[in-house]
């Protein structure tokens, strides 16, 4: 069930199609071993979210995902009471008549009226993998609250009691670094910066995730993408874009990259008009060279 070593992590994640390098394998192993959350930062499209999916699949645990956004608060992350049902329940009690007030109140805060949001769900279902995605999008107040949960792995609900995870969930936090996270939160976590993969590794990734793409096309596509990452683009393409592009070219029945098909599919690779123009120029140079 658990991983035995960093090499074991690499092999078993590799079986699910997630290829990670030494550093990431070691950090993942440590995070699981030390029961600490793992904070992953890096450019979009470097496989931060995919790692959580791969871990969940490998360990055969449910993946519970909390997508952060501006304005998210505890009722959306932790728990909420099912308000309409509580009212209905009260009305039903009233209609049946002759209820003890104290009893009625007690019955209101029963487990069946509790709506478990991702964090609470992860604690109750543990062992599980909890993915807190794009935590940099949430406000800083939310971080403080997250910190509290992550340091004790328990949530106290005033009307209900304390919910503690029997085994702490595997927690992964991802951030695109649109803002600096608070130090206190970072200190709780193991930190890893995911870089874009190198040429050979990215070719391997495309081979394992999109096996239908021919080897020659795969190498060409990845070479172009790697060059483009050094060009001054507004949004350099991530691995996800590489995969999209390779699949798009494959769908068009392209065996080897040429200017025409590349120009037709460039929308899979870059999402800014200015970038698309730059890519066309770069392709011109790369393919004629």
């Amino acid at each position, binding site marked *: 069930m658990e991983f035995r070593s*960093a090499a074991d992590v690499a092999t078993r994640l590799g079986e699910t199609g997630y290829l990670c390098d*030494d*550093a990431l394998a*070691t*950090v993942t*192993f*440590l*995070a699981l*071993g*030390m029961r*600490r959350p*793992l904070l992953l*930062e890096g450019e979009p499209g470097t496989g931060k979210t995919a790692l959580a999916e791969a871990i969940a699949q490998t360990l055969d645990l449910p993946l519970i995902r909390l997508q952060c956004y*501006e*304005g998210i608060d505890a009722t959306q992350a932790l728990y909420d*009471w099912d*308000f309409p049902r*509580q*009212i209905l329940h*009260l009305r039903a009690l009233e209609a049946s008549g002759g209820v003890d*007030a104290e009893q*009625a*109140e007690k019955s*209101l805060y029963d487990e069946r009226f509790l709506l478990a949001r991702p964090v609470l769900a992860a604690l109750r279902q543990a062992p599980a993998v909890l993915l807190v995605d794009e935590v940099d999008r949430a406000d800083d107040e939310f971080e403080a609250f997250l910190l509290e949960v992550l340091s004790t792995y328990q949530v106290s609900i005033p009307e209900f009691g304390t919910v503690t995870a029997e085994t702490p969930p595997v927690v992964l936090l991802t951030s695109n670094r649109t*803002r*600096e996270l608070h*130090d206190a939160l*970072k*200190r709780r976590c*193991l*930190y*890893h*910066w995911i870089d874009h993969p190198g040429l050979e590794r990215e070719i391997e990734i495309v081979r394992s995730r999109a096996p239908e793409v021919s080897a020659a096309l795969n190498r060409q596509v990845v070479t172009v993408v790697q060059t483009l990452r050094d060009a001054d683009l507004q949004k350099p393409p991530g691995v996800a874009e590489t995969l999209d592009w390779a699949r798009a070219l494959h769908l068009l029945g392209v065996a080897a990259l040429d200017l025409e098909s590349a120009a037709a599919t460039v929308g899979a690779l870059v999402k800014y008009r*200015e970038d698309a123009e730059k890519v066309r120029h770069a392709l011109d140079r790369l393919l004629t060279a």
Partner: protein
Amino acid sequence: MTELSAFADATRPARPGEEILLGFTVALRAAGVAVTHDRAQAYLEAVALAGIANARAAYYAGRATLCGSPADLERYDQVYEAYFDPRAGLPRRRQAPPGVPTASTSILPESEAGGAGEADDEEIVRARASAAEVLRQRDIATLTANEKARLAEMFATLSVRPPLRRSGRLRPWHRGSLDASRTLRASLRRMGEPARLEFRRRALRARPVVLLVDVSGSMSSYADALLRLAHRLGTSGGPVETFALGTRLTRLTRALAARDAERALIAAGETVPDWSGGTRLGETLQAFVDRWGRRGLARGAVVVVFSDGWERGDASLLAEQMARLHRIAHSVVWVNPHRGKANYEPVQLGIRAVLPHVDAFVAGHSLAAFAELLDVISRA
């Protein structure tokens, strides 16, 4: 990094592994990485788990437990190289003493800092304070290199409050509009008795600030100070975007994101291709509005332009672009270093062209003027 090596099978006189590792954290702290006690503890735990015999794993364990940002990772690698012998994974024999003196935060000149008798202390403190005050008021263009270095440290004393706007989010408040859900919730707690009304109002959020810094030749004596100001603003909470205006437009936000001001300024210097070149203010502004501003960067933002408005030839394009920018932005502040000088008259064509399209026209030639500017921005 080395493949396999051991602390354990060292032939040298053994030091306890923990001591070696903790020594490393001390060196790392001296290099500017904020290693706290609990982080050091996590490091020991992680190394123990990864296996102390595996230098590579121990290296990754340190990266994961002691670092918190890409800048930290960079420093970690440097210190690691220096501390551990890359061939054996053991600490080097002759290490730099861990207690490397940290950068002085004093704003005082060296000559004043030493050699004072105790009796004169108060006098000297007062003299220093007034020297700093004079420096605050001085025109930056007239400072010597030494004075500029002292002024650079004083930027930390500027207090920055980002401008605020109302957000779409509602927050509980003691008055405002009725918060139905909280009122109902409160009544439920009292068995359905509506005992108390709850209210809410729109929350406040930091309004984005966009800084456009003219780095052309005529502004070169202020460029360093302006970028320092941009860095100070950018690292103080609210969203701040910085661009350099020269013969072309350069985005500096990423370069200035480093927490350390010196590093950020070096990065910015490397990013800008046309320091002290000419200006094509109208065209670069157009590039900004087209590429960034219109798309949302300047929408609802406080846009601050640092420039003397020196435009060769026709200023009609500049006026046109400023008008566009003014329509998009929440407010536009024009900062002209010459404004602060005695007998200043806005006579240049460029300045006359932009004045109808700015909300505030302020000086920016000294630290004191910067403090006033920050005030203008926070109230915008």
